[in-house]
């Protein structure tokens, strides 16, 4: 039996209905993939190797980078503590402290220490020029792609105006969404000159298992100072910073599931109508010698073909949105990129196929069990 031919032709038999179903399914898959891509991005952000070895020292009782100010000299004192491998003072400047779809994050650091501590690799540009020129900047490839930034351009936001001399990739996904500058340049360039202060310290410890003890030692060291600290493992810091985001994600997933149910109902309606109007045709097939399983195969095949086309369209839409939509969710200076992985494409396709299977199972079973004589009498 030429299944492929019959399946294709039958989908085109009711073009508008097939297109509407395909469109609904594509929207559901696109939404599902986009929500899940944020979840994957979040997991990637929280799952980096380096995060296990890194502590973030923040100003106690401050929750936004714009209000956390710590003396830069803390770095020297922290580096003397037992178990500390290196300390990176970081000055953050960003456009929005709250949850945002278009966050701009500048990170000013001492260049030499930063290049030692962070695992970044230039994909284009000139590293020597970055080290040499105080207003030069390296842009994470995620941010560069979102904003269409290329090497040689100037990038300006508020009082900060930098020359882009390189685009980099990083081992930690959150770092690919930032702009790296010289520390002093950023300290001076912000709306308020805060030379000598930083937002946080990234502390690399020798042994990940001792991270908790080192964090306690740091906070005890500055407990009585004017600017007390709150030190947490980077993973805990990221988890805390992205708490709101995870709540939004949970809601998004419920929304995505609802859309999948709507798609299921839509597809179910299409399959049921398709079967009802073809009872007589199925009767003719059975008379010719086709078996019940052939008829069930036809019904299921059409649903699965619709699902594959809908999933492909939906995943294409999601890819376009993520690749060219210029969106990344940021909160409290931490940016999470939407991450479309092959696994996610598989999940999107599986979701569509499950919808198709559920929607078509009963109609296929009923079509397979038709009474041939009754079916041939159907008007």
């Amino acid at each position, binding site marked *: *039996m*030429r299944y492929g*031919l*019959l399946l294709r*032709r*039958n989908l*085109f*038999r009711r073009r508008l209905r097939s297109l509407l179903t395909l469109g609904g399914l594509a929207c559901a898959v696109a939404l599902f993939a986009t929500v899940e891509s944020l979840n994957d991005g979040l997991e990637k952000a929280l799952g980096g190797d380096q995060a296990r070895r890194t502590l973030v020292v923040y100003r106690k009782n401050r929750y936004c980078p714009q209000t956390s100010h710590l003396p830069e000299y803390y770095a020297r004192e922290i580096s003397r503590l037992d178990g500390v491998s290196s300390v990176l003072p970081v000055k953050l400047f960003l456009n929005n402290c709250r949850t945002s779809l278009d966050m701009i994050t500048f990170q000013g650091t001492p260049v030499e220490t930063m290049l030692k501590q962070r695992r970044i690799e230039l994909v284009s540009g000139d590293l020597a020029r970055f080290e040499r020129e105080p207003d030069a900047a390296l842009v994470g490839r995620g941010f560069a792609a979102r904003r269409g930034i290329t090497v040689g351009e100037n990038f300006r936001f508020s009082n900060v105006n930098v020359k882009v001399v390189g685009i980099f990739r990083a081992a930690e996904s959150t770092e690919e969404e930032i702009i790296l500058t010289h520390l002093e340049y950023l300290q001076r360039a912000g709306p308020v000159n805060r030379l000598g202060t930083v937002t946080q310290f990234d502390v690399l410890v020798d042994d990940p298992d001792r991270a908790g003890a080192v964090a306690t030692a740091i906070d005890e060291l500055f407990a009585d100072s004017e600017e007390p600290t709150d030190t947490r493992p980077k993973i805990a810091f990221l988890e805390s910073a992205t708490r709101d985001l995870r709540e939004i994600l949970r809601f998004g997933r419920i929304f995505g599931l609802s859309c999948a149910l709507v798609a299921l109902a839509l597809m179910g309606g299409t399959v049921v109508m398709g079967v009802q109007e073809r009872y*007589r*045709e199925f*009767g*003719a*097939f*059975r*008379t*010719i*010698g*086709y*078996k*019940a399983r052939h008829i069930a195969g036809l019904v299921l095949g059409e649903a699965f073909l619709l699902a594959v086309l809908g999933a492909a369209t939906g995943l294409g839409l999601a890819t376009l949105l993520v690749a060219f939509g210029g969106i990344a969710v940021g909160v409290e200076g931490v940016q999470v990129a939407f991450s479309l992985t092959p696994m996610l494409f598989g999940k999107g396709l599986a979701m569509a196929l499950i919808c198709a299977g559920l929607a078509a199972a009963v109609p296929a079973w009923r079509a397979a069990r038709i009474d*041939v*004589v009754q079916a*041939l009498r159907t008007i």
Partner: protein
Amino acid sequence: MSFIELSRVTKTYRRAGHVVSPLVEVDLVVEQGEFFVLLGPSGSGKSTLLNLLAGIDRVDSGRIVVGGRDLSALGPGALADWRAENVGYIFQQHNLVPVLTAYENVELPLGLLPLGRADRHERVALALEAVGLGDRHDHLPRQLSGGQEQRVAIARAIVADPPLLVADEPTGNLDADSADAVLTLLQRINRERGATIVMVTHDPRAARRGSRAMRLDKGSLRHFDHEEAGA
């Protein structure tokens, strides 16, 4: 040599709460190569008998043997295989698949047989040629006249070269000229291919095209006399 043997065949079914018995202990023998015509008023059970012969319905009691096979002994799967190889069914309303071309519709039964692409092509081309539609391969059913659609349906019924053709009011929906052409075609198929044909009709004039006719009424069969009927 008998090709079809019905022995004490009874069939009843329920319709709107009433038990209807269109066939009561019917006996019938149809010879191989015969063009047998079954007449009778609407609701007399002609189509029921045809469906039993074609293996798409089951008897309540009695026995049907076609080409040496006892149909009551076959399970649903085996019966479907038997139909694919042995029966060509011509419907009153042709029942072509609207999204397939004439060629693809005729090719449908061959999808169930172990044939190569070239064999299938040759058989479909011959069948369409035999019904005079050799130049209509790529036409969809909606692009054909009623008579042409019925001829495509006949081509579909003969393409697998089955020994038995059953036709349920094949001219019921056609104008006089098209009906005449279809009956002439069935006669030719019967003569040239040697296929046994069982045709159901309520038209006595159509019945004259067969080699033998019987009338089914009130559950039993009796000989049909063309002269008596004035056909």
